C-alpha cells in the first residue's frame, strides 16, 4: 500500500501535477522516431543483442559461401540439437553472471550427473526416470554446496567453484569406476532426449504458431492494460511489427526442421527452459532479487532481501542446469565416460552466455543470450567441421570470438558509464 499523502494535504504540491521535464527525450512519431532512438541507444552503449545477431548472420554467410551444405536442413537441424547441452548449461551461467559471480564447476557437474545416471540405471538397474531425476538432483546438491560456501562462509565464488571443478571431476571418475565408460540403453529415455523427433510437420508449425500467438496476445493485453492505467504503452502497430519479426525466424526454423526429421525434442526442452527461466527472471519477485543483487548487494540487503538465500538458490540453479545439460550431452554420445564434461565445455558455456550479451560485470543479462551465444559457438564448430578445419584452429577462433564479445561488453559498459547508465 502506498502511504497516500495527498489526502491529508489537499493544498499541498500534489494539487499541481509537475510539468513534463523539457529535457526529456521523447521519441518522435513514426519510423524516423524509431531510427533515431535506435541510433541514440547505440551511442549510449545499449547494444543489447545486436552484435550477436549481426555476428550470427555473418558467420552463416561466410560458411554458406564456403560450403552450401551449411544452411541445409540436415546440418542446421543437427546444429540445433548439438547446441542444447551446452545451451542448457549456459542458461544457468547467465543467472550466476547476473549476480556478478562465476561458476567454474559446471563442466565437472555435468559429467558427474551423466556418471550418476549411468551407474544408477545401467549398473544398478534403477528405472530410467528415477535415475534421471537423481542425476539432475546431484547437480542441484553440488550447486547448493557451492552456494553455501560462497554465501554463508564468504569464500569467493571463483575459488569455491574452482575447487568444485576439480572435486566433482574426481568424484565422477570414482563413480565411473575402473571400466571408465558406461554405454547407455540406445532406445531409452536419455537416448531419446537428443534422438527423438516429432515427425508430423504439424508439431513444428504448431509450436511456431503457439509461440507467435502467445507473444502477440501477451504484448497486446499488456499494451491495453497500460493504456487503461494511463502509463506509456507500446502502440498496436509496433506490437504487430514485433510479432512479425518473431514470426519470420520461428516459421523459418519450423520449416527447416520439417525438411529433415521433424521437430527435435531437445530443441523443445531447451526453448521451454529458456522461456520459463526468462519469465522467472523478468516477471517474478525472485528474478527481481537476482538482478538487485547484481546491481548492489548492500542496497539489496537493506531492502530486506535475504542475500544468502538468493545466492545459494542461484548456484543451485546453475548446478541443476549443468546436470540437465550433462544428460543431453550424454545422450548425444549415448554413454558416460571419463571425458564427460571435460575439454572446452566449461569455456563454451561461459562464452555462450557472454557472447549472447550477458554482462560479466553483473546486473545485466537475459536467458536468451544463452540461446544466441550457443548458436554462435555451435555454428563455428559445425561450419569448421564441415570444412575439415582442425580443432586447433577451432579453439583459436572460438577464443577470438569470446574475446570480441568481452571487449564489446567492456566497451559498452564504459560508454554506458559515460552516458550515465550502469
Amino acid at each position: 500500500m502506498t502511504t497516500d499523502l495527498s489526502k491529508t494535504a489537499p493544498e499541498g504540491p500534489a494539487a499541481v501535477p509537475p510539468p513534463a521535464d523539457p529535457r526529456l527525450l521523447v521519441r518522435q512519431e513514426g519510423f524516423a522516431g524509431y531510427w533515431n532512438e535506435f541510433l541514440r541507444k547505440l551511442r549510449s552503449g545499449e547494444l543489447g543483442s545486436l552484435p550477436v545477431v549481426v555476428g550470427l548472420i555473418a558467420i552463416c554467410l561466410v560458411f554458406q559461401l564456403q560450403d552450401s551444405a551449411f544452411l541445409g536442413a540436415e546440418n542446421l537441424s543437427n546444429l540445433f540439437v548439438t547446441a542444447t547441452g551446452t545451451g542448457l548449461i549456459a542458461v544457468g551461467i547467465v543467472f550466476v553472471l547476473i549476480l556478478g559471480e562465476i561458476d567454474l564447476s559446471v563442466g565437472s557437474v555435468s559429467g558427474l550427473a551423466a556418471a550418476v545416471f549411468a551407474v544408477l540405471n545401467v549398473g544398478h538397474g534403477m528405472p530410467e526416470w528415477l535415475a534421471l531425476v537423481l542425476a539432475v538432483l546431484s547437480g542441484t546438491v553440488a550447486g547448493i554446496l557451492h552456494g553455501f560456501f560462497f554465501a554463508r562462509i564468504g569464500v569467493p565464488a571463483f575459488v569455491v567453484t574452482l575447487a568444485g571443478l576439480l572435486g566433482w571431476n574426481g568424484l565422477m571418475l570414482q563413480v565411473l569406476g575402473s571400466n571408465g565408460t558406461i554405454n547407455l540403453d540406445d532406445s531409452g529415455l536419455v537416448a531419446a532426449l537428443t534422438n527423438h523427433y516429432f515427425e508430423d510437420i504439424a508439431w513444428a508449425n504448431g509450436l511456431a504458431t503457439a509461440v507467435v500467438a502467445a507473444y502477440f496476445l501477451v504484448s497486446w493485453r499488456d499494451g491495453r492494460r497500460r493504456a487503461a492505467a494511463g502509463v506509456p504503452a507500446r502502440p498496436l502497430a509496433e506490437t504487430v511489427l514485433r510479432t512479425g519479426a518473431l514470426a519470420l525466424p520461428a516459421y523459418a526454423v519450423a520449416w527447416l526442421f520439417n525438411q529433415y526429421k521433424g521437430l527435435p525434442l531437445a530443441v523443445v526442452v531447451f526453448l521451454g527452459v529458456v522461456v520459463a527461466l526468462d519469465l522467472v527472471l523478468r516477471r517474478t519477485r525472485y528474478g527481481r532479487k537476482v538482478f538487485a543483487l547484481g546491481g548492489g548487494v548492500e542496497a539489496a540487503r537493506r531492502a530486506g532481501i535475504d542475500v544468502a538465500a538468493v545466492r545459494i538458490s542461484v548456484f543451485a540453479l546453475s548446478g541443476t542446469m549443468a546436470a540437465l545439460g550433462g544428460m543431453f550431452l550424454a545422450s548425444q554420445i549415448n554413454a558416460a565416460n571419463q571425458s564427460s564434461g571435460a575439454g572446452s565445455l566449461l569455456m563454451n558455456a561461459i562464452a555462450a552466455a557472454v557472447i549472447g550479451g550477458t554482462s560479466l560485470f553483473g546486473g545485466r543479462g537475459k536467458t536468451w543470450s544463452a540461446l544466441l551465444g550457443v548458436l554462435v559457438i555451435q555454428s563455428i564448430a559445425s561450419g569448421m567441421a564441415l570444412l575439415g578445419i582442425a580443432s586447433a584452429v577451432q579453439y583459436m577462433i572460438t577464443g577470438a570470438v569470446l574475446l570480441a564479445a568481452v571487449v564489446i561488453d567492456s566497451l559498452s559498459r564504459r560508454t554506458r558509464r559515460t552516458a550515465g547508465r550502469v
Partner: protein
Amino acid sequence: MSAAPVLALRGISKRFGAVQALTDVDLEIRSGEVVALVGDNGAGKSTLVKAIAGVGPADDGVIEWEGRRVTIDRPHTAQELGIATVYQDLALCDNLDVVGNLFLGREIARAGVLDEVEMERRARELLSTLSIRIPSVRIPVAALSGGQRQTVAIARSLLGEPKVVILDEPTAALGVEQTAQVLDLVERLRERGLGVILISHNMADVKAVADRVAVLRLGRNNGVFEVRATTQEEIVSAITGATDNAVTRRQARTAEDRT
C-alpha cells in the same frame, strides 16, 4: 509528551574494531513527533540509524517497539515492525529502473507474476504527489542525478505503511525547492501520526520542523532539547561540547567586523 514512545532505545553501544562508535545511547520517538538527531561528523548518527534499521545491529542495549522489547537483527525485521529508513549511502540498485527500486523487496504481483503496470502507475502517482521530477520512471537510477536519486530513496520509504520514518540527511543533496518539499513531507508525516527521526546538519531545517532535538557527541547522548524552548546557540554548543566553539567564535568575529 505523556504518550508512550513507539520506539525507544536504551543503552545502545556499538564498536567497530578500535572505535567505540556508540556508548550507552538512549533515544525515544513518539507517534506524531519529529525528533531531530544532530551531531558533528562522525558523532555516530548513521551508526545509530543502522542499528535501528537492522543493517548493523548494536552490540549492546535494548530496543523497545510499542513498549515491547524486540531484537532487530536484519533489515527485514525492521520493515515488518514498520520502520522505514532512508540511508545516507548505498540505498539504490544502479541497474534497476526507478520503479524496480521503489518496489524492491515489496513488489506487487498477481498470481506470482510481477504487475509492472500497477507498479508503474503507483510509482508515477507517488512521484507526482511528492513533486519529484525525473525524466522517466523506466530508466536505471544510475542515470539520475544525486538529488534525484535521493528523492527516489525518500519516496521508497513511504511505500508500505511505516509507523516510524528515519531520514539520514535527506536534504543534503537537494535543491531549494526539493528541500522545502521534503520538509513539507516531514510535516505531513507528523500530521498523519508517524514518528520521524530526521538527521540533518542544517540548524534552520531542524528548527523549522523538529519538535525535539537529540544531540549526539562522540558517540554519547549530549542532551535532548525541546525546540521551542531552546536557542540555536544552545544546540550548537551541545553539538560541539563547549560554549566557546568555532561557531560562536566565528559569529563574534563577524559581529566585530561589522562594527
